């Protein structure tokens, strides 16, 4: 095999539906694999903490149905990483169930369905820590303590290529992965077919976000990557999009700190000597990528810990004097919450839209508020009852704030809703760490079953 061709229709399967027209063009190009990652930590810690998806079931099913039918029609494998946004075990089970139901619905001939899990048990991690393993923090996080571990609800490990390759070696036709590095979903089949790691990981890097490596901007469109012994070529499938030197090189820096390096379980892709060349209208060729294996096999861990139940409230302000003194209004309401609940045991947040609601302390123009403000209030507490009362006190008391020279004396703020609303519980990212492993597969148990008729 001189080259291996993979199409990617979606950079985050389920988060928004794939665009079917360019996907059909990709399928018509008769690729060797159809693959996509379904996860992201961009969605915040709540889905991992609450063991839910942020993507609607209908959209997940839509994308999986298109990919499954195309893959079975072509007779090529389909690979999904990071099932259901978080890659937690329940999400893997959900995607396996969807695949089974789709296979039955369409009466697809029986095929091999492989899957692997990524969750790491708290007690497993505690044993390793007590055995002397340091769980090293990333990006400003301190090394993991047992107190932080105790505060963590759920942990997933980020798989590299290894469990995907293990399942391909067992002959899987469809793979549903737990939490995975998105590039490894594509690198795994390339490595499985004997292509060099240098090219395989670059192929993954460029395909992971589908059409984000093409221009003009437009998400959820299919791109096709071809890996050879010494180069990767990437082609936009949408009639109006192209993969250009600028769009492909530009994508290398998307969502990462340093555009030259990409870290995955087991090593680092070095793109500092990459050369980009436009070889056809819609195709760019990339050479010069290097993959270096790490001396120590470390796996990234993600964990979410619960802070409490949450309610939200909203108020508006139009009086310019009140706007100029909005911090006093907030202080008044905070004070009333404090009178009722004390200083600790709850959290209360105010986002002041029209002043610095989007950027907070980073906002350079926070001293130039608009002529009207909207304030989002969040109350967080151990129970829903308390969170509701914290939030409604912190919201409604803004109405009664006492400003010395205000002309309006019938209410200091406007309510569109005279209530507070239950929101998702509040979570925080407790784990953003790495763990050393002896065996690349030890955190990722693989399973094989069948689907279809």
């Amino acid at each position, binding site marked *: 095999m001189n080259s291996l061709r993979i199409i990617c229709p979606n950079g985050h399967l389920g988060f928004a539906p794939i665009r079917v027209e360019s996907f059909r063009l990709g399928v018509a190009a008769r690729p060797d694999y159809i693959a996509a990652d379904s996860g992201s*930590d961009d969605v915040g810690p*709540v889905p991992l903490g609450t063991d839910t998806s942020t993507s609607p079931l209908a959209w997940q099913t839509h994308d999986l149905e298109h990919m499954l039918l195309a893959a079975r029609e072509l007779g090529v494998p389909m690979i999904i990483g990071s099932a259901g946004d978080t890659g937690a075990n329940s999400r893997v089970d959900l995607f396996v169930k969807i695949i089974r139901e789709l296979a039955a619905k369409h009466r697809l001939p029986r095929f091999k369905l492989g899957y692997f899990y990524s969750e790491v048990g708290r007690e497993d991690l505690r044993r390793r820590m007590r055995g002397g393993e340091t769980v090293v923090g990333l*990006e400003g996080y301190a090394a993991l303590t047992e107190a932080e571990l105790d505060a963590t609800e759920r942990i997933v490990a980020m798989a590299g290529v290894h469990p995907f390759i293990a399942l391909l070696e067992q002959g899987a036709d469809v793979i549903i992965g737990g939490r995975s590095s998105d590039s490894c979903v594509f690198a795994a089949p390339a490595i499985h077919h004997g292509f060099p790691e240098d090219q395989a990981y670059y192929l993954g890097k460029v395909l992971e976000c589908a059409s984000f490596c093409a221009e003009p901007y437009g998400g959820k469109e299919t791109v096709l990557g071809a890996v050879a012994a010494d180069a990767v070529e990437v082609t936009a499938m949408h009639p109006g999009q192209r993969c250009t030197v600028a769009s492909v*090189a530009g994508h290398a820096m998307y969502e990462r700190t340093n555009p030259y390096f990409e870290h995955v379980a087991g090593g680092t892709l070095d793109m500092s000597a*990459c050369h980009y060349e436009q070889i056809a209208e819609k195709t760019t060729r990339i050479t010069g990528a290097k993959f270096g294996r790490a001396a120590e096999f470390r796996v990234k861990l993600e964990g979410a810990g619960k*802070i409490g139940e949450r309610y939200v409230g909203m108020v508006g302000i139009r009086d310019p004097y009140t706007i100029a003194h909005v911090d006093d209004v907030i202080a008044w309401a905070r004070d009333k919450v404090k009178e009722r609940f004390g200083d600790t045991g709850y959290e209360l947040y105010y986002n002041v839209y029209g002043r610095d609601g989007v950027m907070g302390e980073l906002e350079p123009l926070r001293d130039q508020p608009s002529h009207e403000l909207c304030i989002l209030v969040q109350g967080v507490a151990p129970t829903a009852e308390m969170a509701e009362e914290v939030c409604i006190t912190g919201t409604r008391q803004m109405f009664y704030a006492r400003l010395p020279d205000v002309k309006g004396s019938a209410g200091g703020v406007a309510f569109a809703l005279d209530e507070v609303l239950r929101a998702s519980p509040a979570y925080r990212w407790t784990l953003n760490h790495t763990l050393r492993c002896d065996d690349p597969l030890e955190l990722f148990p693989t399973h094989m079953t069948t689907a279809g008729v």
Partner: protein
Amino acid sequence: MTTQKLSALAKTIRSKNAGVNLITFDIIFRERETYERVKRSGVLTRESVCKLYRIPPERIADFVEFDPANAIKFTIYRLRPSGSPGDPDIFGAQQYAPLLDIEVPAA
């Protein structure tokens, strides 16, 4: 001396999460000469970014001039990880706006 706003010179100015505790900013130019001109001008540096966003130098995790894409890129630490209650921008996608109005001196 006449100046131009960065928004008139750059093809892309964006911000986005890079992991849960970082926000990364990309300023991408269509032509090499515009990119070189902005680099030379000194209006986009660690120091100028700290001043614009009113953050101490320790908040800058990385600052890179990325020649293959005609791009300048910098990354800052968040004060609290993305999606913590009170975080107004879980994806970090709307933090670039102050860059648009940076005045770049004529070549």
